[in-house]
């Protein structure tokens, strides 16, 4: 039995310590928004936030995830309206869509640390996420759009 916080809920999962977080999320917690793409930490499809950091859940054993706070795409925002999710829709980023939850989790972690990323910042933060359909230019544009809308609305309220 492993305890951890998933999307704000204390959760206990009956899984072995060596099971990667990805399979625990998908098969046991039934959260299938995190995707399998390589199982080796090289495609980013499985990206989740662990204590706020973007990490590859396919190579994160449950022994590491234990007692930590996990955010998956399902918990990124209550209504699916995180600025990154909105920008993704505005710019029709997705093609097949399969890689996009991982992309969004990497992008939202980037913006949490860097409110106005440059192209280079974006390229560096997102180079671990493969999109076979080829949505890279739109991902870059959407991250900038999300940054802009967040900065604008922060400006208004402060």
């Amino acid at each position: 039995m492993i305890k951890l916080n998933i999307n704000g809920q204390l959760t206990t999962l009956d899984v072995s310590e060596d099971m990667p977080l990805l399979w625990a999320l998908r098969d046991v917690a039934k959260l299938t928004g995190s995707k399998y793409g390589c199982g080796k930490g090289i495609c980013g499809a499985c990206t989740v936030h662990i204590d706020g950091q973007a990490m590859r859940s396919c190579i994160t054993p449950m022994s590491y995830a234990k007692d930590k706070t996990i955010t998956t795409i399902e918990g990124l925002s209550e209504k699916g309206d995180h600025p990154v999710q909105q920008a993704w829709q505005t710019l029709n980023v997705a093609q097949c869509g399969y890689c996009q939850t991982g992309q969004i989790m990497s992008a939202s972690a980037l913006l949490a640390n860097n409110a106005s990323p440059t192209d280079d910042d974006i390229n560096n933060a997102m180079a671990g996420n493969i999109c076979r359909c080829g949505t890279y230019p739109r991902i870059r544009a959407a991250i900038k759009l999300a940054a802009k809308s967040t900065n604008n609305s922060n400006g208004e309220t402060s």
Partner: protein
Amino acid sequence: MIKKVSRRKFLQGTGLASGTLVLGVQFAPVFAANHEPMSFSPDVFVSMDETGQVTIISHRSEMGQGILSTLPLLVADEMEADWQRVTVKQAIGDAKYGSQNTDGSRSVRKNYTKLKEAGAIMRTLIQQAAANVWAVPIDQVRIENHQAIYQNQTIDFKNLVKIASTLEVPARESLKLKTEAEQKYIGKPGMKNLDAHEVVTGQAKFGYDIEIPGMKTAVIARPPVVFGQVKSFDASETLKVPGVVKVIEMPALTPPAAFKMLGGIAVIADNTWAAIKGREALKIEWDHGSNASYNTKDHEAVFIQALENPKEVVRNRGDVEAAKKDASKHLEAEYHVAGLAHATMEPPAATARINGDRVEVWACTQTPQAAQGNVMATLEIPKEKAANVEINVTLLGGGFGRKSKPDYVAEAAYLANESKFPVKVLWTREDEIKHGYYHSPSYQKLSGSLDVDNKVTSWYHAMVNHPIGATFDPAAKLAGSTDLGQGDMMFDVPNIKIALGETDTFMRIGWVRSVTNINNVFAASSFADELAHLAGQDPKDFLLQMIGSDRIEDFAADDFKYSNYGESPEQYPAETSRLKNVIQVAADKAGWGQELPEGTGMGIAAWRSFLSYIAVVVKVSTDGNKVKIEDIHMAVDAGKILNPDRVKSQMEGSAIFGTSLAFYGEITAKDGAIEQGNFDSYQMSRINQIPEIHTHIIKSDAVPTGVGEPGLPPFAPAFCNAIFAANGVRHRRLPLKNLTLV
């Protein structure tokens, strides 16, 4: 044929609620599985329920081409539906849904008018219903954005559904389709994808994500070499892995491979991790079979031998040999493109449940009907029981042709039948790369002659590869297909010879996005550039000049039996003016001809494939072995464009797919087994390597044509031509192994 559909008869299985107005749209006469013509059998359902929600049941698999929003666009625009109140659903796989194959970029170009008519019928029914309510003539009622309007009164569609469903469907001749100026969605930029919210919230269900009660997960240790077999195996360690419930030996594969299961040992477990660990613990002794003699490296000599001695001339004009004798300059070059895997982001996955003689499948498949046939063959279900096999199409995490080959669907059905559990078969990345239906490695030889005026007087293009046909008929040896990027060249050259060589095949070969256009257009468009430099001319001007006068290319005149992507040459002629136009547009937009810094260059290539005309200009900068893509411009003429945003995204995707194959794509076999296995050994381009991509859509009233595939072929040659322009190094082999993409 378009009819109103009675609920009882057709609506089971569609998930539509009662109180709904439903139209069935039938594209062409269809035949039931027992070959009896069926009276009325819709391909698409268009419905509206009492909340005014419009649901369109699409018969096309989604594979990243936005088809789920493109087809409804036609209906919703005509019917004046509010795009926010439109949803689409997948149809299940059954012969009664007509052709569900989404290969060949055909989805949009068929059935264009039928779908608009369906929308117009819905609109007219609503209009008549409102006219009845207000007791005014129908032409006094306007329909706009989900509302019927009469003077200053409005009624929402939802309040008219009931009445509309009692009315007679208007005759086809009476329908007034919108003029182009009246259209609101068709051809407009920025149409939102209907499934975007599900995708960005992780709710979208792909084949990998299917979960049904009592389901187990299976992974399979497949023979490393095609037609290899299990000699013996020991599963004792596997069965000790917690969560593993069963180990099942799969039947061995016999030729032809077709879409049959590959064989091996399946591990069935409570969860994916247990299945993967169980598979790792298997001890299997393989009999690798005769394909173990195949080494990609050694086969190069066989290929070259075959290339020098082609077996068949498929297009012939004049006399290339004589032209060579009279030439002022002559050039020969050989090109090679390595084998390629699909590497769909979502590997193949299928789930099957068997209940008595009912089989239900959920799968990411591009071809539900082929999947249904494959399941029936695997489980020996007779044709007349086809209705018992239901294929539910999930979203596809990429297709590129891999998911039109339903071997994995057969595996799920087989294992569900043997294990008595509902089973989900998951392919890992390694499985996907090591057990694919590959784009064959190919070798090509081109030669061309110039006269004293630097006009091209001859064009010779020979090609050899492992043909796709060998997957279905082991006796097939002749390379294929000349129709895709080789024989269909549109250069106005007096002497032409197009030839194919023969060789044996040792792995499963299949169609990968744009098929042999990948290697043929790479060779032909690189060679065109080489001839331009030989002639000392600007490559763009030279290309235009080689294409020559405005005309419709008459392939039959050269005894070339050209399939024209299955369409009639009258309706879809090969027009040189359109090809020249995209070249000019791409060049102009890219700033072709401008002074560029040292080490920087532009390259161009253009081809007509999948009936669409595409030109690509790539700008690169080079520094020793480092190459950086600076800019990409693509001009596309795909006839009338329904959804410009999705055309753009397909062009962007093609350029990026092209970058991956140009730089990294290489599948090789050692002793018959594929050496690559994951994204470390079979790499993909990354975001930092890709610049902005500019797509220029040519406005056209021609019949719409495909956009999923034709952007790919000209990309790699434009890219390599740019490298030549930048640093004078000609690359004739893909991938570009000794270069680094930065």
